[in-house]
């Protein structure tokens, strides 16, 4: 039993940062902005979370720094893609390379060459009284860290904002037809800046989750492509917050199960590498099998008001 609970609890834990990332991506993409810098934002969030906590001794500072740095990267991204109208995929590629370099570089500037790993205190596991006593569910859902609990609140909040408020309507219209927003007196660039900066904020937290919430340290390979997974989940979740939730859980579960298989020393007939590739294969399969995608009509297209 405890094996199953463990698998589920870990799936949820690993889903948390992915969900922060994919929800923020949903919001941004609904406004027409693919945040392809997400991998870099995750990384700088992880780094910022570590540095803030290490230097100032409190996870709160770590999270704040992570959000701040995430927003900075997002702001650069928004400036280049929104104001300067340059290509989103390309800009993201450049920023991801740059951020990776900067994190490693400043890690050395700040901490030199330590011989033993620099550790910080992890966010504690907070068992919620009563709820955490529920068999299985309690252990899985209510014995997590604070960031996971915040996530529970964020899911309905994002849904509500996107579909029940004028802000959400403006965001969705901007992704479908920016001209409509513009004509309606909504600044397309403002909306897009905001959603991208929000992505930076959330992505920063997601990154911080890895360093502060999960591992208590920072390494250059800490994100290792997980930002892209969050990015993919946004697609697979059909640009809907609930879709993203399902997508993330599927992924968290796939990863958990693949690790379970590996922990048994491999499944015998299937090589280890198969399980490593499994989440990626799953993405491809889902991308292929998923029909009637409702991709925001102007996703990735810069808004040009007065051409030439």
């Amino acid at each position: 039993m405890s094996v199953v609970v463990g698998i589920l609890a870990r799936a949820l834990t690993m889903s948390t940062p992915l969900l922060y990332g994919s929800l923020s991506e949903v919001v941004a993409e609904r406004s027409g902005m693919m945040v392809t810098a997400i991998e870099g934002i995750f990384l700088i969030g992880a780094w910022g979370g570590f540095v803030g906590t290490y230097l100032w001794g409190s996870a709160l500072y770590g999270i704040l720094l992570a959000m701040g740095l995430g927003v900075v990267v997002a702001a650069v991204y928004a400036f280049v893609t929104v104001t300067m109208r340059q290509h989103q995929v390309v800009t993201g590629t450049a920023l991801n390379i740059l951020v990776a370099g900067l994190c490693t570089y400043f890690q050395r500037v700040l901490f030199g060459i330590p011989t033993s790993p620099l550790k910080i205190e992890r966010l504690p596991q907070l068992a919620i009284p009563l709820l955490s006593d529920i068999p299985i569910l309690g252990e899985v859902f209510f014995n997590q860290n604070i960031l996971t609990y915040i996530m529970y609140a964020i899911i309905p909040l994002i849904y509500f904002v996107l579909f029940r408020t004028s802000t959400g309507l403006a965001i969705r219209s901007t992704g479908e037809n920016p001209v409509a927003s513009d004509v309606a007196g909504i600044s397309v660039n403002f909306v897009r800046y905001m959603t991208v900066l929000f992505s930076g904020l959330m992505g920063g937290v997601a990154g911080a989750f890895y360093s502060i919430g999960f591992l208590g340290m920072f390494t250059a390979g800490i994100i290792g492509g997980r930002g892209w997974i969050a990015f993919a989940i946004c697609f697979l979740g059909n640009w809907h917050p609930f879709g993203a939730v399902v997508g993330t859980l599927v992924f968290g579960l796939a990863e958990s199960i693949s690790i379970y298989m590996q922990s048994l020393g491999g499944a015998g007939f299937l090589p280890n590498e198969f399980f490593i590739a499994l989440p990626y294969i799953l993405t491809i399969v889902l991308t292929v099998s998923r029909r009637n995608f409702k991709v925001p009509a102007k996703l990735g297209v810069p808004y040009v008001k007065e051409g030439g």
Partner: protein
Amino acid sequence: KKSEESAGTGTQPDSSAPDGAKAAGDYKIVLILPGPINDQSWNATNYAGLVACNDQLGTKIEYVENVKSSDYESTFREYAERKYDLVMAAGTQFDEPAAAVAPNYPDTTFCVVNGSKADGDNVAPIFPKEYEASYLASVIAGNVSENGNFATIGGFPNEPMEKLLSVYEKHAVAIAKERGLADAKATRAYANSWDDVALGKQMGAQMIDNGADTLFVYANEVGLGSIEAAKEKGAKFIGFSSDQNSVAPETVVASVIFDFETFYVWAVDQYVKGTLSGNKVHEAGIKEGIFKPVYGPDISDEVKAAVEAAIEDYKAGKTDLSKYFDK
């Protein structure tokens, strides 16, 4: 100019010059590293060895870090061209490039740390017999485990890795059985990564959930994640290669460290003395004193004594570890 700024400081001990002319500091030596020196793991360990040499032997070893695989050969060649006396490289992956370059530069000695390929008068790899270290680790593990359920995680499966894990697993299980834990067993997993910390944590947690109470991980940063898992779940962790006790003093009950400082000093000193000869893999292990146990507060004196006994027996040639290798 360069000598003043070279890495490592410290006073110059009066190292005996082999041919009466050259002091240790006169040799041009470089260490090639595959990753950044602040990686808190393999590269950092090797870098520490370099610093120790410069401190203790008075050498002026330089280093290059983060050399990409496509540049291994050219880096060897470059330093050989620049008439370096000794080119060291940290990692078995340098074996082939060293073998390819060495014949053209007979005046340069090529020393691959962890290397096992020694074809040439000027190819002199040094090799820590890691399975001897894991043997020591297994003595501790076998004695501290409460349920005899051992979990091991390796970075990537390769021969030395398999050897050291087999020695550890079989010996630890044997000890546990002696202690009356009839169900003792070991499970092994490979992370297929050296640096995915998050994966290390998940995998470690999973193995503990599967029933293991003692973890042993040899996979660089991946291991740091597993320590975190052990800490969270209250399992024991046997540190390996570096002193991991400080990472989580409650959890890492003991570490068997590779004393790369001793190892490097041992190797470079041999070179300076002229005994680091080619065509030979210079192996070091328990006998050379490069593996050292470091104990946490919870290790009993009996366990410590058992380790000491294992070391002494081994030094005396009473132990044959090859019986533990998988065939």
